[in-house]
């Protein structure tokens, strides 16, 4: 019975190249036989062969059941074949996949690593919603397996589960987050992958995790993971501006150091997304991308151009130097590279370089191949010139010449855009008309045979020549050209019609200019006979429109001849027929047509019927009653008995809008098509518009008529911008070009939509359930878990109960779950709303509210929910369900205790996020500092000497102030001492709850508490707090942050700080302020308020503590008048103010120690500290002196920091049980060591 192995099959197929289908047909028959046997080996073999055939494109879904049989084999060799086949051909539509549920579950939970692993691997291919619900809990359990590979696979598999079963996300998320800190780097990487994927679609929910990822990023060396993390930041950055600043440093660092192109590219892309307004980093990106583009590797070139395309939108100037390089890319062998370069060029255009770029493109047009690509270039030329209402074009004669030449380029498929441009320019720029008309008449004369591509052009040419015939030198000649054969007959009907129609205009012009006397008479006669002759032949045309136009013109000409024969003249009347200037029509004009009094557009014209209309019946037909067959049925129903429900009305409105949108003859009000298109429409299809509109006969005066300027005026009035105003542009005296600014208002705002569309749009999101799983995964992850939020657990039936078919069971479950889920979703919505409200309130009351209160409120809410939900849960089902509920209840008890600590951290973290992001938090790097100190060099300095704020100094300045105020508020929360009247703040109540394992969060938090401003000086009116920070951007600089708190009931103004510089410390004063002048602080202090400022100092000697003296003067402005006050200030700079942490690892530290540079050691004893406080002492020293702990072994710890003058400072803290704790300080300078030791002694 055993026929062929897979190898035989493969060989067989190769051998039967000529009659492959027949051979495979035979094989499939064989396979079917094999599948019927009881022998598992045969079956597995058959399935393996089927898998191969499936890959070749043959259907194998019929064998789904057999695949499950093979999957369930207890021999791994067969099981593997089964799973492979399943992963290839199972999909949601296959019913039997349901049968696999138990099997997959069993295998996934198997103690055999390979079984479990294979089940997890192929999960994504056949996971259905039901399967996801059933498996969610089990896979979550696997995430804490002891085997790294299983942890890793189950973590990744959770993503598929979330996609199919979004409700699992919240319960599973704490565990997923734990995996970020798993011991195994692979598991970490998997968790990063999952979160990155999730965050890509709903970044706002993952913002609070930024600090966690930041730490991972700075500590990881795995490029794959780094790419993912950086990508994640790329999606987070647009959500939070400050994050970009925070990332600036590490990303710049990576960009400058990494050798992996993929990582470099990812960093650059994230920088572009995260800090698009930051000039220096964009410059860095451009520099790096330039290397990409110059590389010989086509892939890098392509990506370089792609990324530059992102930058060009924000910084077209930065790309300018690369112009030649990009233009060279136009010659590239690869079309996709050429297209990228073309797009990039489009973004670079300015008024200055337009001509040059267009000329290069035209040259390029001559050399390149491929019609599609040529069309692209032409479209690009047109689009870059017409951009922003031709704002870049200075000379329109030049532009027209370019366009005319483009018309003549061979092999252009579609001249439509060019022709429309010519028309548009001619209509909008009156001064260029004479030039344009001359060019057009030449084209009209010279094209002998019609090339189909030219038809569109001919249409515009004819129109221009006719409409602006006044500028023609010889209208008679042009008139003859209109009827050139065989061109005329070959043209499409609409072009013929236009030609004929415009010939009338030309004829009128001929009559007008013809001199009186016999010569003129002859001319008149000639053209008359010519016209009549040609028109008569055009009457024979099969095209209705041509016929109509021809007969119209013919009759007019004949009538004229008749009148003239009697000695009269109708020239004046004839001229009146075509008189009037045609203006561009505003795209919004249609909408602005006023509704006449007494017209109710919502009133029914024909009462609707009760009968449901067939879905596909176009609404306008119903409305206008033009469809006979339909109106007959309409009237069968009694009109009174019908009341249209609102829904129906809405749906009809939508239907109508849809049909309007698809109706090419309808001028769309909100259409984004601008200028040329509208123009062409309104000119070319005037007649058709009327045809469509006539039957309505609502006696509305049609203001849309081209010849009246009313709509334009309307637009002027109703749209504030008044876009249609004329703009004068003089060009070097040679030709003054006046440009009618095209009415380029494309209204994207909802307010401009036709009514009805607006209403339905608002609802779509909430009411219509979307199929996109990512929308459903938009879940707030920071809110604490509620009790009822948990993954459903599948339970077996009681032993002894009747065995049911599995399919039925799952159907049961499904239905019941659906019910439950609906309720849940409803609840979740409610919850989300409540949360939002809470947040709002939180923000307002943050100052007053303590964490305790908030916590209480939250728990209250939770209770409240429980009460509400209680009955629902119980009321769901019968006996079995009660059973289920019990398990859920018991689960409930476990779950909160398990997750709550980390959840509390979560909420703290969320509050802390703002703080973390605030640049000020930067001087307190997490003491675990293996990574670079967070936010190093992110301190934007006020004096404006630093590159960070070079762009838009003014606007960012204001923003900064605002930020600072926000920050202030936050700081107040974290700094109890500062705000005198506030109760014990968040910190003291929440610290004990922090999970000690969660070091990053904890340490970050401790820092914010420790890093307090101290009081500098105070008097009755004023209190000044200060804090010293280093300026990481510039060595040898320290920044003094000052907070001024007003205690006075009056406003304090003219605060001036007079600082006496010493030899070693000098204040950096704003430009224009002398070394002895006072610094005027840029604010006033209103009662009860506080303000913040910072002063930068240059420090020449960082080895010893420094002191400065100064005075602060200010005015008190009260009702009684103003008095001046003076306050003496002493600022002391301890040595620690000059020391900062670095991201040294142990090896680097050892290197420094071993280098012999650090010769000067000072040891001091700290006898007052008990040995039990050793850890505290280390933390105290590390935060107090700003050094990081490199290593901690038993009762010793080594710490390291570096001064802003680049002196190494190493500390060894030892706990000798007898004599307390000793600290030895090693540095290259004796005096520095001494100063540090003294400070430590003071500190402790």
């Amino acid at each position: 019975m055993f026929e062929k192995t897979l190898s035989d099959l493969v060989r067989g197929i190769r051998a039967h190249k000529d009659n492959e289908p027949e051979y495979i047909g035979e094989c499939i028959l064989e396979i079917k036989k094999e599948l019927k046997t009881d022998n598992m080996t045969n079956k597995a073999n058959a399935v393996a062969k089927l898998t191969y055939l499936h890959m070749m494109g043959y259907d194998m879904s019929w064998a789904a059941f057999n695949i499950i049989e093979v999957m369930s084999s207890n021999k791994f060799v067969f099981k593997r074949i089964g799973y492979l086949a399943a992963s290839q051909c199972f999909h949601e539509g296959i019913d039997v996949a349901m049968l696999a549920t138990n099997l997959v579950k069993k295998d996934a939970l198997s103690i055999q690593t390979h079984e479990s692993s294979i089940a997890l691997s192929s999960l994504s291919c056949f996971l259905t919603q039901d399967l996801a619900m059933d498996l969610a809990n089990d896979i979550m359990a696997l995430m804490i397996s002891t085997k790294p590979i299983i942890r890793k696979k189950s973590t990744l598999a959770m993503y598929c589960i979330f996609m199919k079963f979004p409700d699992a996300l919240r319960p599973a998320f704490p565990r997923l987050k734990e995996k970020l800190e798993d011991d195994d780097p692979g598991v970490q990487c998997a968790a990063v992958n999952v979160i990155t994927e999730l965050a890509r679609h709903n970044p706002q929910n993952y913002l609070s995790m930024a600090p966690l990822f930041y730490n991972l990023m700075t500590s990881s060396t795995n490029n794959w993971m780094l790419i993912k993390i950086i990508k994640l930041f790329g999606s987070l950055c647009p959500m939070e501006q400050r994050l970009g600043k925070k990332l600036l440093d590490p990303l710049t660092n990576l960009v400058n150091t990494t050798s992996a192109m993929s990582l470099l590219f990812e960093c650059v892309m994230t920088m572009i997304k995260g800090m698009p307004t930051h000039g220096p980093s964009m410059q860095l990106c451009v520099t790096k991308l330039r290397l990409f583009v110059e590389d010989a590797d086509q892939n890098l070139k392509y990506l370089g151009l792609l990324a530059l395309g992102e930058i060009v939108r924000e910084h077209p100037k930065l790309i300018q130097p690369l112009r030649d390089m990009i233009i060279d890319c136009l010659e590239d062998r690869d079309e996709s590279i050429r297209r990228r370069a073309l797009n990039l060029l489009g973004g670079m255009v300015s008024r200055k370089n337009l001509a040059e770029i267009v000329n290069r493109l035209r040259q390029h047009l001559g050399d390149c191949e491929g019609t599609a690509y040529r069309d692209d270039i032409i479209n690009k030329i047109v689009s870059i010139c017409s951009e922003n209402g031709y704002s870049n074009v200075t000379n329109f004669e030049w532009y027209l010449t370019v366009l005319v030449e483009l018309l003549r380029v061979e092999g252009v498929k579609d001249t439509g855009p060019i022709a429309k441009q010519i028309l548009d320019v001619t209509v909008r720029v009156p001064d260029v008309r004479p030039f344009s008309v001359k060019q057009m008449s030449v084209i009209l004369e010279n094209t002998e045979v019609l090339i189909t591509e030219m038809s569109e052009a001919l249409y515009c040419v004819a129109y221009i020549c006719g409409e602006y015939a006044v500028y023609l030198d010889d209208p008679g000649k042009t008139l003859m050209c209109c009827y050139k054969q065989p061109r005329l007959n070959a043209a499409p009907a609409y072009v013929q019609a236009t030609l004929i129609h415009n010939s009338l205009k030309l004829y009128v012009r001929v009559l007008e200019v013809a001199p009186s006397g016999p010569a003129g008479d002859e001319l008149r006669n000639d053209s008359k006979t010519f016209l009549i002759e040609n028109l008569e032949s055009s009457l024979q045309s099969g095209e209705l429109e041509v016929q109509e136009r021809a007969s119209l013109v013919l009759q007019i000409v004949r009538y004229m001849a008749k009148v003239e024969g009697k000695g009269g003249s109708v020239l004046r009347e004839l001229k009146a027929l075509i008189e009037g200037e045609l203006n561009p029509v505003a795209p919004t004009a249609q909408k602005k047509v006023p509704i006449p009094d007494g017209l109710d557009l919502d009133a029914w014209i024909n009462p609707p019927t009760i009968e449901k209309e067939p879905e596909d019946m176009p609404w306008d037909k119903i409305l206008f009653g033009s469809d006979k067959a339909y109106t007959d049925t309409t009237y069968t129903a009694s009109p009174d008995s019908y009341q249209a429900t609102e829904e129906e009305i809405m749906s009809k409105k939508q239907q109508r809008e849809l049909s309007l949108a698809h109706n090419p003859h309808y001028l769309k009000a909100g259409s984004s098509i601008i200028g040329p298109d509208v123009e062409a429409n309104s000119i070319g299809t005037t007649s058709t518009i009327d045809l469509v509109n006539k039957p309505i006969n609502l006696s509305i005066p049609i203001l849309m008529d081209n010849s009246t300027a009313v709509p334009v005026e309307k637009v002027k009035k109703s749209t504030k911008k008044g876009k249609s105003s004329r703009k004068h542009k003089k060009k070097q005296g040679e030709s003054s070009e006046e440009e009618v600014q095209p009415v380029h208002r494309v209204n994207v705002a909802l307010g401009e939509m036709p009514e009805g569309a607006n209403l339905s749009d608002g609802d779509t999101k909430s009411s219509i359930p979307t199929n996109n799983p990512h929308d459903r995964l938009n879940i707030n992850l920071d809110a604490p878990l509620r009790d009822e939020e948990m993954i459903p657990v599948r339970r077996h039936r009681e032993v002894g109960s009747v065995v049911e078919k599995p399919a039925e069971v799952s159907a049961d479950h499904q239905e019941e779950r659906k019910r439950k889920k609906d309720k849940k979703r409803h609840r979740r919505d409610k919850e989300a709303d409540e949360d939002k409200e809470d947040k709002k309130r939180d923000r307002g009351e943050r100052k007053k509210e303590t964490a305790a209160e908030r916590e209480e409120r939250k728990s209250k809410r939770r209770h409240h929910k429980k009460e509400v939900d209680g009955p629902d849960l119980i009321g769901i089902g019968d006996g079995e369900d009660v059973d289920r509920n019990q398990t859920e209840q018991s689960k409930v008890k476990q779950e909160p205790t398990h997750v709550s600590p980390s959840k509390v951290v979560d909420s703290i973290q969320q509050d802390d996020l703002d703080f973390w992001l605030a640049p000020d938090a930067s001087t307190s790097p997490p003491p675990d500092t293996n990574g670079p100190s967070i936010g190093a060099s992110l301190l934007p300095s006020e004096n404006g000497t630093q590159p960070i704020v070079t762009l838009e100094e003014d606007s960012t300045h204001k923003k900064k102030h605002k930020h600072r105020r926000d920050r202030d508020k936050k700081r107040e929360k974290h700094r109890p001492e500062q705000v005198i009247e506030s109760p014990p703040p968040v910190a003291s109540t929440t610290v004990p709850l922090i999970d000690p394992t969660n070091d990053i969060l904890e340490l970050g938090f401790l820092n914010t508490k420790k890093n307090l401003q101290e009081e500098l000086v105070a008097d009755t009116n004023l209190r000044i707090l200060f804090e010293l920070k280093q300026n990481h951007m510039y060595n040898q600089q320290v920044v003094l942050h000052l907070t001024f708190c007003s205690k006075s009931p009056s406003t304090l103004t003219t605060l001036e700080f007079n600082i006496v510089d010493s030899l070693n410390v000098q204040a950096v004063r704003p430009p224009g302020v002398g070394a002895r002048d006072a610094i005027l602080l840029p604010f006033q202090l209103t009662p009860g308020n506080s303000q913040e400022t910072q002063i930068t100092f240059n420090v020449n000697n960082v080895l010893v503590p420094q002191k400065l003296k100064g005075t602060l003067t200010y005015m008190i402005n009260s009702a009684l008048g103003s008095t001046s006050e003076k306050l003496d200030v002493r600022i002391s700079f301890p040595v620690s103010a000059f020391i900062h942490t670095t991201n040294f690892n142990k090896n680097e530290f050892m290197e420094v120690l071993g280098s012999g540079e650090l010769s000067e050691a000072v040891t001091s004893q700290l006898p007052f500290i008990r040995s039990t406080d050793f850890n505290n002492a280390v933390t105290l020293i590390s935060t107090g002196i700003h050094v990081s702990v490199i290593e901690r072994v038993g009762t010793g710890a080594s710490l390291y920091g570096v001064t802003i003058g680049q002196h190494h400072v190493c500390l060894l803290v030892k706990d000798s049980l007898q004599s307390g704790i000793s600290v030895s300080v090693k540095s290259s300078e004796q005096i520095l060591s001494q100063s540090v030791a003294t400070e430590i002694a003071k500190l402790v």
Partner: protein
Amino acid sequence: MFKFFFLVNKQGQTRLAQYYDNTPAEERVVLEAEIVRKCLGRNEDKCSFFEMKGFNIIFRRYAALYFIAGVTAEENELAILEFIHNLVETFDKYFDSVCELDIMFNLDKAYMILDEMILDGEIFETNRSRVLAPVKQLERDMFNKTT
């Protein structure tokens, strides 16, 4: 994220195909044909990425075999190229200078290696020895059972 990954030879015959997004079988055939046609049309001069139907195709040619990955638009193209190379090196290590026939006659092994490297559409493991460990383990198991 990967949408699919496949191997085709110069004649356009699929030699390995794995989908991660439930694409129906009929569509697969059409999709493969279209992508393969485009890939074959791109010679050495051209870059190895192109966009198609909302996702990016990234391919690399090794002798007569094209390794083609379909990924979502935001995926890092260079990283995927590196991944493909990694996969080829892994095949090479396992099959000892891999050729088309190796993959044809050991389809299950090839799939297994791929599955160890991409799990549910995400790059899962890039360390060659860790990828090959389960495959080799399986071989040993089978060998032990037969002897």
